[in-house]
């Protein structure tokens, strides 16, 4: 009995370290390993060999619970989706991937180039629009992003399209003027199309560490987030920070980015994700 107990203490330490290495964070990693220890003591877990599977399941269920995995949908017209996030996380590329995903399903999609600030942002999205084969609304550099969104919604209504995907400029979540700009985009969309935006996706880089918590909190406070996209999961980072986010705010993870091509994109699968976490 003593030997068996010794094995799982070492195993529990290993699991805690794996969680930390996956960016779950030290306090939550300890919490989780404590939970597992309790379950083992209460005989909810019978054998040491079952611990890993139990843990994976527990985490997957946590991510799947309350998860509305499908995209928000407007029953009365174009569905407006905002893509937001910190600089360089993959918003523009994700906009293209989402456009491809939706057109593959037979939907009509329009892109709104609402990053009117960064060098060649409009050109970048323009190239993606032609690659994916969808319309795009662009204004001059320095134009008001909200005006781009307004025009894009108009165009989508006129052309009877199903989705407007709004690519916004990267921004640091602690900069209140930039968060206000985002809030204005949100408001203007809502004025143009009832209920818009019907989905606000926070694009998170899977390599991000504990700062993702601050990002999730402030973007949610600033403009409201309805779902996450976790990009760059094709690297070695596990993206475990979403488990920490999940404990604090219920933000369903809707999609994952798996590379730089427009097809490197998939709906989020909680069990696949937790399997990879301990791989």
């Amino acid at each position, binding site marked *: 009995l003593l030997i068996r107990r010794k094995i799982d203490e070492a195993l529990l330490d290993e699991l805690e370290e794996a969680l930390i290495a996956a960016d779950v964070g030290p*306090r939550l990693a300890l919490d989780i390993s404590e939970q597992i220890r309790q379950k083992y003591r209460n005989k909810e877990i019978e054998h040491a060999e079952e611990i890993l599977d139990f843990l994976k399941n527990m985490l997957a269920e946590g991510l799947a619970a309350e998860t509305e995995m499908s995209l928000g949908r407007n029953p009365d017209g174009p569905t407006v989706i905002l893509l937001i996030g910190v600089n360089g996380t*993959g918003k523009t590329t994700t906009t293209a991937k989402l456009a491809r995903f939706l057109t593959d399903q037979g939907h009509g999609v329009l892109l709104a180039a609402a990053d009117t600030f960064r*060098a*060649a942002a409009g050109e970048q999205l323009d190239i993606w629009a032609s690659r994916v084969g969808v319309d795009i609304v662009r204004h001059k550099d320095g134009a008001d992003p909200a005006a781009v969104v307004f025009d894009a919604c108009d165009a989508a209504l006129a052309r009877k399209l199903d989705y407007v995907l709004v690519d916004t400029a990267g921004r640091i979540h602690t900069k209140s003027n930039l968060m206000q700009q985002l809030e204005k985009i949100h408001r203007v969309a809502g004025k143009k199309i009832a209920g818009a935006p019907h989905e606000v996706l926070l694009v998170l880089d899977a390599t991000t560490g*504990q700062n993702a918590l601050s990002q999730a909190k402030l973007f949610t406070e600033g403009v409201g987030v309805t779902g996450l996209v976790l990009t760059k999961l094709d*690297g070695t980072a596990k993206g475990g920070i979403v488990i920490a986010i999940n404990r604090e705010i219920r933000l369903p993870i809707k999609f994952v980015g798996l590379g730089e091509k427009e097809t490197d994109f998939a709906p989020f699968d909680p069990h696949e994700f937790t399997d990879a976490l301990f791989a």
Partner: protein
Amino acid sequence: SISDKLTTVFRTIAGKAKITEDNIQEAMREVRVALLEADVNLQVARDFIAGVKEEALGEKVLNAVNPGEQFIKIVHDRLVELLGGEREEIKWAAQGPTVIMLCGLQGAGKTTTVAKLASRFKNQNRRKPLLVAADVQRPAAIEQLKILGQQIGVPVYAELGGDPVQICAQALEVARMQGADTILLDTAGRLHVDDALMFELENIVARTKPQEILFVCDAMIGQSAVDTAAEFRKRLPLTGAIMTKMDSDARGGSALSLREVTGVPLKFVTVGEKLDALEEFHPDRMAGRILG
């Protein structure tokens, strides 16, 4: 904050400070958590804590009026020492042009940073830079660098399509013709586990023999910073690193991991999207930021 936590650790019910083996251990645990929450890599944090343990059990803490404060000072000073050392500037070539290559993961801030460097070298170091757009893969990457080059008055060498290795090699010739003495290579973002693309970087290095190979790292990167940096260091003779997006509230613990794992110094940090948002790296400021 960590200082508050440590003050609590060393305080007794009577409000007076007391040192025991136990609360030293507890203090170490608190520091470890602070480092991990700041995104310092697990192994690096462990080694770091082991490194301060001896000093923590020594005279300074044991005889201190405020041991919590003294403890923090030991940790802080040790961090500064590990992060800093001598301030290293760019290794300018003694003769001929200086080649500086930027590399790193996707979206780290390379293109924006390479333009900031060009602007600094032109205005502060009186250099005559040439920017080289060696990212032929990302949509409008060349356009992005051209626009930035225009904004700072620095020429950009680019070829539409073509091979990054050839482009960089050709850039040396172009620089010679233009009389440019500083050649800055902007490369495409890539994964450290992408063998073909890492090999491409090795080839660029072989053809252009850069004086500086700078690893560009996002301040918000987490635990995977160690694997990433180690692989880049394994394949390339890195000479320095640049940490970007330090205008965010990311603690930047990867700075310590970077230094410990690659041995290269952090030469600059970037603090915003504008082209003048480039600063020298200050180890003491970074230490304070990591400790929160």
